[in-house]
């Protein structure tokens, strides 16, 4: 897997390079500012980019802007955004184009390297990975509004795990039920959110989008 890494803090960049290489990723470029990131993304077209939000030269949301710009020019370019804090606003911006293949995680999540690398892989494969904290805020905000109000608590739980980017198998394991039970839940969710049968991955992305956009 070819990875472009954007992180301006040397220690963290180093740590991420080592971690990703240990999981058989090839770091094709490691940059430390917004303009370089944009150039690297458009030139190298990696399988996935791991991007820090705040970088030089402005030390604001440079990384996020570069990632969004790259995805406007190359739709669906897989990007996993890392940040010291998560904002629903940024999550929505990342999800807005509806092409999936995005992730948005707190930097803390790199502590668990297995899980983190799993998230990187899922984004590279076109999945959507949202930080549990984004999802918790959404749950607090949208529990009673349409169309999510139509979902049962169990279905909402499944949808939340789906938004974290987990597969049916992983959700089943987490909720201690069979994968078939989860498949039933997901098809109910698709039905209630009025998502037409198309390819499964796309519907998952759309369901998560519906979830995040209420």
């Amino acid at each position: 897997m070819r990875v472009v890494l954007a992180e301006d803090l040397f220690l963290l960049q180093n740590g991420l390079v080592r971690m990703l290489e240990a999981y058989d990723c090839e770091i094709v470029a490691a940059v430390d500012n917004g303009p370089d990131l944009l150039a690297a993304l458009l030139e190298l077209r990696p399988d996935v980019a791991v991007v820090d939000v705040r970088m030089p030269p402005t030390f604001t949301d440079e990384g996020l802007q570069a990632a969004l710009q790259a995805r406007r020019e190359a739709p669906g370019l897989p990007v996993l955004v890392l940040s010291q804090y998560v904002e629903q606003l940024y999550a929505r911006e990342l999800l807005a184009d509806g092409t999936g293949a995005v992730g948005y995680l707190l930097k803390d999540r790199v502590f668990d390297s297995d899980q983190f690398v799993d998230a990187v892989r899922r984004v590279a494969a076109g999945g959507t990975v949202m930080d549990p904290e984004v999802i918790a805020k959404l749950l607090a905000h949208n529990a009673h509004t349409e169309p999510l109000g139509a979902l049962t608590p169990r279905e909402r739980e499944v949808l939340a795990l789906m938004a974290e980017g987990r597969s049916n198998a992983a959700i089943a394991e987490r909720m201690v039920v069979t994968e078939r039970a989860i498949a039933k839940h997901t098809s109910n969710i698709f039905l209630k959110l009025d998502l037409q049968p198309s390819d499964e991955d796309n519907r998952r992305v759309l369901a998560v989008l519906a979830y995040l956009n209420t």
Partner: protein
Amino acid sequence: MSRSMADRVEESLPWFRERLVALGRCLVLHLLVYPGLLCAALAGFAFVGLGFGAGALLLPLAVLAVRRMADQRRELATRWTGTVVEAPYPRRPVFPAGATGVRQWVRWLRSDPATRRDLTWLLLDPVVGGLLALLPVALVLEGVYGFVVCANVRWMSSTGYGDWFVLMHAHYGHGGDLAAISAMGVGLVLLGLWSAPKVLPVYGRWTRSLLAPTPEVQLASRVRQLTETRSEAVDAQAAELRRIERDLHDGAQARLVAMGMNLSAAAQLLEKHPAEAKEMLLEARNASAQALNELRDLVRGIHPPVLSDRGLGDAVRALALDSALTVEVGVDLPGRLEAPVESAAYFTAAEALANAAKHSGGQRVWIDILHRDGRLLMTIQDDGAGGADPAKGGGLRGLERRLAPFDGILVLNSPVGGPTVLTVELPCELS
């Protein structure tokens, strides 16, 4: 022909109405002279009595009465004459209780330059302001009197006297004179009506000349206000730093210490008890995650990253997304605000939103942010039950303190039954 006449009459109605209103105002302003004279008499007694000691009791009463009177006139002048007249009085300092306090209060009242100007006004106003306001009223009355003369001329003539009206002798049988008198009366009434709205601004200028604060007083009150807000801002900053220090000390710092201890314990246990060492390491990892969480919350409280990233508009949108209520945000800002203003406005919105969620009982909030004529205008309205009491809400006072160094104004309008509308006005430039 008659139709167009009626039209003309109808068209001139607003002209008359406006002038009648102005005339009425002149009349009221003139009549106010008489209670003013009473007040002046009271003040005179007080000053004469001062020599005998009795005035010490009467003086503050007189000064306060004069102030009330002057305040009323300032308000009327501002409302009716288009001349804004602000009060020049400084805020009352805190005096000790008992006789010394009363003595200090009296001295403070007497030495206030505004008191002297008030008294000068009180003496001159019956002459200047009173006559000025009387002028249009007198013209109209004199004109009306002309008609009275005409109507009564037969009776008056029969007594053998006749009557005079503005240099014209009215006598029964002299139809030409009566016509002239009537014309004169109409002329005077019209002149009076015409002059009433012209007199009002002059009256306003007169009132302002003595009742408005002098430049020195304005400067002094500005300095006082700046001193107050500066010391409040410094206090608030110091309190904020103390809070941050405490949060760091009890939170992240403590967790880092625990982490270090766990790590060194793990290093010692690594060879002999690898299982326990692993547990220690996991604990250290959790502690670091918790420390990060606490630091994140702390940073949000100091200056939310989204605010520095995107500015006020998006930061308030982010707030709206995190709120438990349904919040609609409208932003019309062509540029970024200065950082301190941006931060003050952001925390005002955050506090207002939190209050709406906690107390209003409403479901929806509308936030509008725009920049006009060098001012940031922000309104936050909810659909709740209203009845928010600014005196009770310590949060509101805190917001005022936050906005005061920027000369920001905060207005809370919350009638019982709702809606609650908070309006913030902050002078600032866009970059």
